[in-house]
């Protein structure tokens, strides 16, 4: 059903609701006037509790062991009214395409390994177990390294450690558990940057290992010995055991006020595919917009239309050509322990559109209008409840 048709079908119901509301208000208003005996109608709930702490009645102190939450100065239903206004403001762009800003690490540095320092002992020795990427794509090697240090006199001093045992453990799929052993070395080879720097390194290609062919999530478990003490550390990683989608070509156009990038691709396995992409100015570094969309795709040559919402680009006021980067995504499984990630590491330049060729219109979708309608209904119900 189109939005217009939906509006037409709802029109009679809306008329009924409006008339009914008037009747109910009239009936209840009469009751209140009669019951209070003073003939003064009560203030509508929506304005019954004026804001401001000074106007609020004094509250009894909470009983022992109890605490109180309070939004200072907030009248009843204030939160929901505010949420409605918030939603109206924040949904001018769709949730699947919005402004990309330099602080959005999760989109701009989307494949960095997530790593933190961990304590080894109570003498201040720290360990860092790092990796070359968050996701390892089909055919790519994965490098992981582990180092320890202490901070003395404000300076980091590396501490020698020994990896007594290391194993890849499968953490998803039908055959979870230890898969194969690894060797960590500090010899300046096989991914190790410098021999003798106390950083122990290992490297392997996940998609080449038969033991990992039926899974997509694993971790390296490393048993570390340092100054006679031993600890175990883990390094999670995600990998693609096989390619599932290959991008063949990209094209672009402005359609319905938005920038549409057509991604022609060979789909190697049918399924629901989620696509991520970022849009930059012609310098390739100034972020403008991001998009995330999913499509059910059958196997074979298919096209996915990635939409960068027009108002996002219009509001950025940056003319093209634009650069599309960070094109990647995942094949979603109903049992998505086995989601398979894919990527397209090359960038793509669009035609030289002007920003004002894109639409300035706010997102107008049934999801938005229905949510706003739902908010309004709930607020109306709470206000009718009265103070």
């Amino acid at each position, binding site marked *: 059903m189109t939005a217009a048709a939906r509006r037409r079908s709802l029109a009679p119901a809306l008329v009924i609701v409006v008339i009914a509301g008037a009747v109910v208000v009239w009936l209840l208003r009469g009751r209140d006037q009669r019951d209070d005996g003073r003939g003064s109608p009560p203030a509508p709930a929506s304005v019954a509790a004026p804001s401001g702490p000074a106007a609020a009645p004094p509250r009894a102190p909470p009983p022992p062991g109890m605490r109180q939450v309070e939004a200072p100065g907030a009248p009843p239903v204030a939160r929901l009214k505010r949420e409605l206004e918030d939603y109206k403001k924040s949904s001018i762009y769709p949730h699947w395409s919005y402004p990309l800003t330099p602080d959005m690490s999760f989109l701009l540095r989307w494949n960095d390994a997530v790593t933190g320092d961990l304590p080894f002992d109570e003498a201040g020795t720290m360990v860092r177990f790092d990796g070359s990427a968050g996701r390892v794509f089909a055919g790519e090697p994965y490098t992981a390294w582990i180092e320890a240090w202490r*901070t003395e006199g404000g300076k980091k001093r590396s501490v020698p450690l020994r990896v007594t045992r290391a194993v890849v453990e499968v953490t998803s799929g039908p055959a979870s558990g230890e898969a194969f052993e690894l060797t960590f070395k500090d010899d300046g080879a096989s991914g190790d940057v410098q021999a003798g720097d106390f950083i122990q390194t290992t490297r392997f290609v996940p998609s080449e290992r038969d033991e990992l062919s039926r899974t997509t999530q694993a971790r390296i478990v490393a048993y570390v010995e340092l100054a006679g003490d031993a600890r175990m550390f883990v390094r999670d990683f995600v990998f693609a055991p096989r390619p599932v989608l290959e991008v063949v070509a990209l094209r672009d156009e402005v359609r319905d006020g938005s920038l549409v990038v057509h991604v022609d691709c060979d789909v190697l396995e049918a399924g629901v595919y989620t696509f991520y992409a970022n849009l930059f100015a012609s310098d390739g570094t100034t972020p403008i917009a991001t998009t995330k969309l999913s499509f059910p795709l059958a196997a074979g040559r298919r096209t996915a239309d990635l939409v960068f919402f027009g108002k996002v680009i219009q509001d950025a006021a940056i003319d093209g050509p634009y650069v599309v980067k960070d094109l990647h995504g995942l094949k979603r499984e109903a049992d*998505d322990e086995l989601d398979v990630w894919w990527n397209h590491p090359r960038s793509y330049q669009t035609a030289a559109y002007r920003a004002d060729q894109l639409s300035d219109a706010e997102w107008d979708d049934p999801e938005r209008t229905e949510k706003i309608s739902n908010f309004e*209904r709930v607020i109306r119900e709470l206000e009718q409840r009265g103070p």
Partner: protein
Amino acid sequence: MRVALALVFALSVTAVAAPAEAANYILHFQGRSQSGWKTDSLGARMTLANTSGTTWINKTFAFNGNARIVSTETDSTTNTNSVNYAIRTFCGTGTGNTCIIHAYSTGCARAKKAIDNIRNGVGGTANTLSGLLYIEGSGCADGGTDLAELATGKWTGWLAKLLGQQEAVDKDLTRSSMRTTFSYIHDQVGVNFWRVDGYLDVCKKLMGLFKICGGSYIAGTDDGVVPWASSGGFDTQTSRTSLCTVSAADEKDTSKNVSSKYPKHRTDTYYVNCNGTSIADGASWDHFGVPDMAEAILEADIRDGSALYAHWTWSDASGEAVCTSSTNCDNAFFNTNNNDFGTKYADGYSTGAANVDAFTSQTFGTTGSTTSCAGRCGTNPGGSYCSCAASSATKCSDYSAQQCAYVNQ
């Protein structure tokens, strides 16, 4: 008569205007170690928001909070206790329902995972969830926790004292897993995901000698189990000492996303300060006490802007004296009443601890002895993210500045 007429008329029109059984729901998704919304023996914790006199209905779900994030507990479209089923049913477009979600701890990741699956048509028909109004998250572990990385190591035994035995979901609760494997769940909630958390630590005394505190093993400020980098909704694991990126006002500015946070993730600075305290009375919370406060927020939201809650802490009933010299800070913790999350809560008005040992512990002492702190306010195991500066000569100032008194509150 007029009232009766009004009711009959209103009911009849409602039946015409909205789908049958359309209603307003508050969904509650529990966390790790919980099979339902409240699991303590007394049934007193995690009291649901009082919805009486409103059109709102509380809904809780019996799923295993220890199950992996990818599981029927999260994703099933047919299991009526699944998070996915719940959100489809009570928030879905076409149902006529509206919903608010309160997600606690691991429940935050389950809710976001289910929402992403539903929006993208994974494992079922796609739905835009137009009934979902907003989400309140308490102690959210959807950014992972350092403890999950330690829980697999030699310290498993220690941490089990704090968290209970290792569970399947721990493999998903590492920072890497939550932010990489599940990176796709964070960016399409589509509505405000308000977040609340506190800074009280979660501690336990071991062997009558020293105590361990979860916060000592977590970078930055935390609630004893989850770092603020996670519970605050930040988009990297970088340690945080504020729940806000810039300011309380910035968190409320819905004309844009909060910088360095996942889209629409915001600290609920209408109720909570950026330093993890209540705006109403300055209280703070540990990981196990914060969901009650969030329930009160929801109650305040749908009722009169104010609500009461029981202030639970996993700690000693007695507070420790504020540090006055280098030798009297932060006595060891003792709590013998354990029946929840592997230990028992002191609830703030019942006795939670048998005693507080008289061991004095210098804030600059090493851990593991009767003269050490071994907790949040000592020379911490890592040296780089402890509360008290190891090189500082003014330990009492550290103690005060880092609010160490709350460790044993």
